[in-house]
């Protein structure tokens, strides 16, 4: 059964040290709840970006909340590089597990399908492979002459993302962003912030059902309007480019980042 909680309660339900799966900015990122995680001083996260990170991940890194980062990229999009991420790479304060997008999906698919690994084409010859001890080169069991990569399953403890709506039964509409569906299937629990809560079951409408994450995967829902801001929410609202530019400028220095986060904290 899905619990309906406040955003602050949800932030308390995500423990330090967990493996946290996050959706990309402008799709289903949950910077609103991430700010509350920072406020409450979360630490030692193993963040899995599915498959890339943006402002919410940069903020978690800037706040010192991330021990390990598994991602195919971190970027602020048009606002440029991710300043806290670049700084943390330079000073070695996070453990990096660089990936490539489809390998993250393959790892999540392995977890979704309950298998320990997935094969994936490509990658051989990339230094990304050299740096990953959880990926291996094997032979195609049906053709010894072909070398192929296998990646191990990625099972986050908690998937956290923002969505347009949930119903009061715990079903969550994601629309065509099925990478978030995959993330939820692969994770032990899914925590979801939403813009709205529907009294009517989202599964009743056959035309809509295909884009709905069933309640069996959803551990908790919290209503948090504009919970995707300042990044966007797919097909609902675009990113607030000015705010992200403002963040990008501020976060160029650790002090600027702290001031930005404090400013948001008091405004929230």
């Amino acid at each position, binding site marked *: 059964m899905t619990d309906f909680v406040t955003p602050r309660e949800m932030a308390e339900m995500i423990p330090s040290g967990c493996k946290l799966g996050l959706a990309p900015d*402008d799709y289903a990122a949950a910077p609103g709840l991430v700010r509350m995680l920072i406020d409450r001083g979360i630490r030692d996260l193993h963040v899995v970006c599915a*498959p890339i990170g943006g402002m919410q991940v940069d903020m978690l890194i800037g706040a010192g909340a991330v021990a390990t980062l598994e*991602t195919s990229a971190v*970027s602020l999009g048009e606002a440029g590089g991710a300043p806290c991420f670049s700084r943390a*790479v*330079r000073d070695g304060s996070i453990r990096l597990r660089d990936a*490539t997008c489809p390998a993250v999906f393959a790892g999540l698919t392995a977890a979704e399908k309950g298998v320990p690994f997935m094969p994936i*084409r490509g990658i051989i010859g990339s230094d990304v492979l050299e740096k990953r001890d959880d990926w291996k080169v094997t032979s195609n069991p049906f053709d010894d002459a072909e070398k192929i990569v296998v990646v191990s399953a990625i099972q986050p403890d908690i998937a956290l993302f923002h969505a347009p709506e949930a119903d009061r039964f715990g079903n969550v509409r994601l629309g065509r962003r099925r990478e978030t569906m*995959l993330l939820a299937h692969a994770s032990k629990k899914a925590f979801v912030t939403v813009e709205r809560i529907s009294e009517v079951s989202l599964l009743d409408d056959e035309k809509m059902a295909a884009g709905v994450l069933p309640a069996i995967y959803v551990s908790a829902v919290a209503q948090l309007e504009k919970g995707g801001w300042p990044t966007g929410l797919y097909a609902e609202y675009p990113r607030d480019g000015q705010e992200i530019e403002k963040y990008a400028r501020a976060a160029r220095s650790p002090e600027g980042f702290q001031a930005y986060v404090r400013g948001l904290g008091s405004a929230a």
Partner: protein
Amino acid sequence: MSEACTSRELMIYTISRLLKGVRHVAVGQSSPMPAAGAMLLRALNQRDGLEHVQVSILGSVKHNSFTGGAEELFDCAAQGRLDAFFLGGGQIDGRGNVNLVGTGDYPNNPVRWPGSFGSAYLYFLVPRVILFREEHSLRSLVERVDFVSAPGVTDETVYRRGGPHALLTNAALFSFDREAGRFRLESTHPGYGWRDIRGTTGFSYDNEQCEVTTPLPDEATLSLIRGRIREELRECYPQFAGNMPGPG
């Protein structure tokens, strides 16, 4: 007469030429010029009654052919349903290796870029990968990349049907010979000569003394870029579109 063709417009037009014949082209995040080039080919083919071009722009709601999430792009490529894609690269070397991770030693790179995205995969599976890097310099086009996000060439024990097709910068256009594993200078953009290219390219390549000039778009194509394409770009790249020449 309208304002002269800008360097960016020339690159957009050149991209549309490099895509000629593709049925389905996808464009990654943060790639306004590749997106514009793909949109331009679609518009030109439509105008001329040629084959429909499917353009999939990651991050777009409107220019999106997928309904299965971001992984569908990669599946689609693996199925052979994607003919062309673009890769950038903080560094690109003469073997077609691409570095999207950073300079210096991994993991504590002094300069860190976003990361490899889908490059290590799509480079193997998409027949026509166009390398696009605006900055043509010894810093960006290097002898040997500091980190291989995606390799340009692969031995025969690895399945590969895709790879580098061309390299386009703000100064020149190269093709890539997959057998030889080398670039070939095809043309230099107006304002650049072959000596400029040689002096600003960190790797060796064929046809060094190339005298061909990259062709400019005609007036009709230029208005298409400044009109319809600029409008189509606005959804995903409002800042980029705003900085392009055009009416209003």
